[in-house]
């Protein structure tokens, strides 16, 4: 299992090496020319400012929303949890398009912050809500009983309990902002990623060199994340955690209004805009129904294959690190998370480099695209699979074996059923993310293959081009 995991980790880390090779192939002078110019400082400032703003806002919004759904008894709690997560399913370039079409003159930074915050706060909401659900409300009660007030209990008890989840969520937000291309292109806000993409179309050598500071930024964030001390929380036996009491109407009404506003901005605006444009636009600019059908099929197929590969690769890594944890195994597992620091555009570039230099046979085939999806979303799959592996303590399989079942039977009847929700969740999450993937798909989709994302992209470019023509 360890050897297999090591092979998987190596494959996942290959883009990191490839991108350095790619940059070097352009020559040192090229790297210097691209990196050490005032444009780089501008891009760095733009990227970091936006990432910091979005992370801060997403942390506040995500945590508050999690508190509302987990610790207050708002009506229709389950519906809210779904609605609050929904923005994750809407690609940021669609949201960017929606806001841009509503307010075309909005300032680049403001628009980018708005769009990214609305799109990424679920990345904070999800882990924090999970942490709150796990955290025993008795802790709060104990703090109250010790004479500590509500606010101080929040600061001294509850926030430390969710701190790891909160920071983890923020790291994801920052990495998402670093990797985003489509939304910023539409909103005309330049970051490293948009610059890399532009350079890739006109001067591929420069794109490789530009990737390096972006990857370094990502690695910096990940290193910071790794340095956060984490306490292992011992899982107690399953028990019933009492639901919070229903809040008074006075408190409930503003809470509901705020949540409704959040969902309205995050989900309502983009969907409403899309529906409006669909109804308004001339039929000639809409893609033909036939290509829409083939694009849907291509999207579903590639995303499902990518998700399948990602989950399959995640299973041995998760089992290895959980079952027999030792320092090398933990390091091995952690190393696979490094791909999080690699934006889609960088992974795509590295795969193009790999194919054009060493494996010409796979260039312009779906293999590269599926590989990119699997590498890009591997950490998502691993997180899901790992959390479900934790649901199968070694003791359960021990007991199952002592009852006379052989390991394959134990795997089928105990391990797999208990893992299934995690595997399925991992598959769905990767699938949903891959369905809306734009950047890597634009670079890697074989000629003639369109996914829904690239179709939308082509459509919005046409509309934008038309609008520009009309204005001039």
């Amino acid at each position, binding site marked *: 299992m360890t050897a297999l995991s090591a092979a998987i980790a190596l494959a996942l880390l290959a883009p990191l090496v490839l991108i350095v090779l790619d940059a070097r192939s352009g020559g040192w002078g090229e790297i210097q020319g691209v990196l050490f110019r005032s444009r780089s400082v501008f891009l760095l400032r733009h990227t970091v400012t936006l990432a910091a703003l979005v992370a801060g806002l997403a942390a506040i919004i995500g945590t508050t929303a999690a508190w509302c759904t987990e610790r207050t008894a708002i009506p229709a709690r389950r519906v809210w949890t779904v609605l609050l997560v929904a923005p994750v399913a809407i690609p940021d370039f669609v949201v960017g398009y929606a806001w841009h079409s509503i307010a075309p003159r909005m300032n680049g930074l403001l628009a980018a912050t708005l769009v990214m915050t609305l799109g990424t706060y679920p990345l904070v909401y999800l882990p924090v809500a999970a942490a709150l659900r796990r955290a025993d409300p008795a802790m709060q009660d104990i703090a109250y009983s010790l004479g500590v007030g509500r606010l101080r209990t929040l600061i001294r008890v509850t926030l430390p309990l969710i701190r790891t989840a909160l920071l983890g969520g923020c790291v994801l937000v920052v990495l998402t902002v670093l990797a985003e291309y489509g939304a910023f292109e539409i909103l005309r806000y330049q970051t490293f990623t948009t610059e890399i993409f532009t350079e890739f179309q006109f001067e591929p050598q420069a794109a490789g060199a530009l990737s390096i500071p972006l990857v370094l930024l990502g690695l910096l964030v990940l290193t910071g994340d790794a340095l956060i001390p984490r306490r292992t929380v011992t899982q107690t*036996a*399953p*028990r*019933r955690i009492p639901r919070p009491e229903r809040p008074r109407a006075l408190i409930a009404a503003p809470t509901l209004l705020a949540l409704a506003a959040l969902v309205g901005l995050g989900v309502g605006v983009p969907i409403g805009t899309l529906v409006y444009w669909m109804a308004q636009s001339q039929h000639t600019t809409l893609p033909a129904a036939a290509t829409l059908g083939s694009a849907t099929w291509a999207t579903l197929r590639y995303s499902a294959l990518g998700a399948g590969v990602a989950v399959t690769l995640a299973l041995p890594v998760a089992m290895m690190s959980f079952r027999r944890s030792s320092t090398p195994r933990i390091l091995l597992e952690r190393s696979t998370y490094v791909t999080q620091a690699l934006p889609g555009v960088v992974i795509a570039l590295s795969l193009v480099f790999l194919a054009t230099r060493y494996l010409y046979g796979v260039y312009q085939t779906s293999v590269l695209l599926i590989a990119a999806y699997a590498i890009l979303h591997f950490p998502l799959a691993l997180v899901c699979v790992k959390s479900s592996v934790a*649901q199968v*303590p070694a*003791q*359960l399989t*021990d*007991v*199952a*074996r*002592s*009852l*006379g*079942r*052989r*390991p394959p039977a134990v795997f089928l*009847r*105990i391990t797999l*059923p*208990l893992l299934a929700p995690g595997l399925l969740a991992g598959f769905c999450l990767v699938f949903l993310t891959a369905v809306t993937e734009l950047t890597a798909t634009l670079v890697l989709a074989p000629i003639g293959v369109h996914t829904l994302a690239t179709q939308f992209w082509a459509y919005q470019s046409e509309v934008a081009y038309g609008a520009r023509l009309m204005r001039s």
Partner: protein
Amino acid sequence: MSAIALQEVSKRIGHTDVLTGVDLEVPAGSLTAILGASGSGKTTLLRLIAGFTQLDAGTITIGGRTLDDGHTVLRPQRRGVGYVPQDGALFPHLIVTANIAFGLARTERSRAHELLDLIGLSDLARRYPHQLSGGQQQRVALARALAIGPAVVLLDEPFSSLDASLRIELRQDVARILRESSTTALLVTHDQQEALSLADLVAVLRDGEIVQYATPQELYTQPLDAHLAGFLGDANILDGTFDDAHVATALGRLPARWHGEPPAKGAPVNVLIRPEQIELHPATSEKGLTGQVVRSGYHGHDVLLHLQVDHQATAEQVRARTRDTGLSPGAAVRLEVRGPVRIWAVSASC
């Protein structure tokens, strides 16, 4: 015939010698307790017998069949050893009957219902583990282990996560179920009450070795050393001088019992006198020695008195149990020790 036999079993985990040459023979049909403090190697011993880990030296046999001798290691699924862990470890995705029937062939599934009757939970057959109380979970875990008709059932601190009243009730229940199914059982515990009240035989495990293996009565009255005496229950440890099968103590000259070679005449020894061995008489009586009550602690079923014996050079107090609640501090009593007392040569005590 012994159901489980361990010979010279040793196990090292990391850099720690967890077990060093454990010998143990468990008679068929008995309930044997392994009593030890935490870290004494109890759980490792059970895991070795169940086959979840392998030993480094020695042999383990069940009913004459070798399970593990360092070369041939029978896998857990072939051992026929039922295992009931501390928290039950029920399969969370299976209902109660499916949990119990897990180890059964399809044709024997009906046996699950017999076992449900045995543990008295027939009404809860279709519940999931998280819908059961802690005690119910443990009963189901036991039924699941018994379902496969195991040669031996291993119980790893099965009562420790339950509250006191439930624990006593479940203990009696488990003992009854094991007796009714006439299964050999090995119970690991750190609770001396549990070991003494439940088991036919008790093996005391200390630092990876079995230091004493005896019936509860023998263990209680004849413990190997003063440390163990105190671990098993309230103990007065007095100084004494050995003298021809007797020992001279602050409480008079008493008949002595010892382990191994008798001490030399006149040698200093430690003497164990259990509080219930001290009989109290009214101060007006002629029997025993005079003393007075220093402190009294009420326990409901009896009273524990701290007594000071008169006309003795030592300031040592002794503890005694009585049902007489009328004795308050300062009251004069007479005390007399009943039965033989356990002695150890001074060097052997710790």
